[in-house]
């Protein structure tokens, strides 16, 4: 009985705790579990969610990507600016290409050269922030024809009553889960993160696997930037600041191990969505927005601790 309970908690503890949270907030705030509010939350989490999907690949290879926040800023500035000069279609293409390009650059330094991922992406965080200021000249950019452009679809419109960004999040997650679980590349990502030496002994080019994981992280950040640009119809120079931490928090909360080799897209989606609902629920309960940070702290520590403890069979090391 006790072991069954433990097994349940290990598999579904996160979900169960989250369910309790949802119910208790719903009991005290009527507006919480209404379709309108739920869609609002999904709209809000779609940006960090899409990014987290790509970062999950990097984390499963046993690496980190701290540059995604700065990259989001840069790409949002680019997509908005290019929208004004080259038109929406071209702007999106350029943004996607730039995102993949920066991801590949990280991939070269971390994957191919073998430098420390934390420091390289930290350096990239700083470098990209500089690039943002260089590109924008320090001023904010805005979409000039915000009311008429079809670019608004990505961040502002609904499709079948569901917000388009939430649909993009869903589609990205479905594709990513497919790639991770069903393709050769996905298998290589798990193998490299699980045991890099054994992967090399199995003929897998582990360095290139890491390289492509970073490229993917760049791509999903570019998609997030399109949503962001469309939603805000403009970009400030700090618009993505701190996003790397929220994204990482979501990935960790989902139970993807920073040591690599394990994790799943759906758990990441769950982690990010939970953070969104916690934020929204606390606001509806009348707490100021910053209380969510305190709760996030507690949730991360508890979730990871319980996860670790369940794997070891006991809570204290």
């Amino acid at each position, binding site marked *: 009985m006790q072991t069954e309970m433990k097994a349940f908690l290990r598999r579904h503890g996160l979900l169960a705790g989250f369910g309790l949270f949802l119910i208790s907030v719903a009991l005290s705030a009527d507006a919480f579990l209404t379709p309108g509010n739920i869609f609002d939350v999904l709209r809000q989490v779609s940006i960090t969610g899409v990014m987290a999907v790509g970062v999950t690949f990097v984390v499963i290879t046993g690496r980190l990507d*701290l540059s995604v926040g700065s990259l989001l800023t840069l790409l949002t500035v680019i997509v908005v600016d290019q929208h004004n000069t080259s038109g929406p279609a071209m702007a999106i293409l350029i943004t996607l290409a730039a995102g993949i390009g920066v991801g590949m650059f990280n991939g070269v*330094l971390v994957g191919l*050269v*073998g*430098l*420390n991922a*934390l*420091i*390289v992406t*930290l*350096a*990239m*965080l*700083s*470098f*990209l*922030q*500089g*690039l*943002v*200021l*260089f590109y924008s000249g*320090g001023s904010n950019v805005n979409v000039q024809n915000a009311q008429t452009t079809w670019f608004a679809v990505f961040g502002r419109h609904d499709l079948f009553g569901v917000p388009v960004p939430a649909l993009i999040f869903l589609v990205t997650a479905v594709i990513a889960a497919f790639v991770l679980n069903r393709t050769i590349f996905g298998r290589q990502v798990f193998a490299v993160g699980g045991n890099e030496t054994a992967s090399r002994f199995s003929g897998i080019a582990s360095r290139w696997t890491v390289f492509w994981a970073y490229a993917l992280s760049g791509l999903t950040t570019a998609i997030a930037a399109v949503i962001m640009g469309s939603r805000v119809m403009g970009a400030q120079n700090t618009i993505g*600041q*701190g996003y790397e*931490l929220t994204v*990482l*928090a979501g990935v*960790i909360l989902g139970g993807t191990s*920073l*040591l690599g080799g394990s994790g799943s897209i759906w758990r990441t989606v769950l982690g990010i969505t939970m953070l969104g609902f916690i934020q929204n629920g606390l606001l509806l309960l009348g707490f*100021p927005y*910053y*209380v*969510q*940070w*305190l*709760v*996030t*702290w*507690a949730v*991360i*520590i508890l979730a*990871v*601790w319980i996860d*670790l*403890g369940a794997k*070891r069979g006991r*809570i*204290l*090391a």
Partner: protein
Amino acid sequence: MSATNSITKAGGHSSVTRLLMRNHIWVFLALTIVVFSTASPYFLTINNLGNVLTQAAFIGILAIGMTLVMIDGEIDLSVGAILALASALAIGLQDHIGIWPAVFVGFLSGAALGFLNGTLVALSGMHSFIVTLGGLIGIRGLVFIYTGEDALMVGDFSYTEYPEIYLGPISLTAMIFIALALFFQWILSSTRHGRETYAIGDNIDAAHDAGINIKRHKIINFTLCGALAAIAGILLSMRLGTAEPNAGKVWELWTIIAVVLGGTRLQGGYGSMWMTIGGVLTLAVLRNGLRLLNTPNYVELMVMGTVLVLALLIDKLLSRQEA
């Protein structure tokens, strides 16, 4: 570090070469100073160098604690948030309990949060990256809960005069930084605790077999790291006379950059306060020099990123040669 097979000492480098290879950041710092001295007449003035030192002090004090934790093979991402909380408490409590008690409470808050980080790391077996990432987010929440969204102002402006004590061009803040760095270099090189730090970061199994209490040791270093962050926060509040809820945001990243630039390794077991002082000063000189040259802000950020990657590459090459 892998051992060599040669019967002679590694590489046959002279001790001077080895000293330079271990402290290559100082060579780089000297080069930077030479470059900026020729580029700008305002750079190599006593006044400006004094300013550089003061500007370096805040990241510098954070970096001292970070170095301790990093030689252990751990990391602390929460120092920026702890700095903000200590600065808010030191200012916010003054009107109620007086200046020095408020400062003391601010200091204690940092030590306590550091203790919490260390305890969580030691007891749970979670990686310190996760524990302190949580701390980075959550402690910032504490700051906002305490301050609301607005900056707190000092009521008694004599508070802001403490750091205005100068010894020649060197401010009190800079002196405190230098004194702390030297003190902790002494701790690292001459005390049991300091030598344990290297032993644990180098070869944790050997340290354990030798009876070193690893958990207690790590808790102490995280506590020191938190306490040092609080000192930086208090000094910042004295200098500014206000406590911003967003103070110290992303400073943890600058701190890590400074420490790694100095040559201390993230894997642990390797580093010193000399290296960290070198890294902190290099960062400050780069920032100051680039501003004197009126380069736009973005150049600074891009140079930092590039320098950091170069530092990694150099470290990779040097450690390969030394090994």
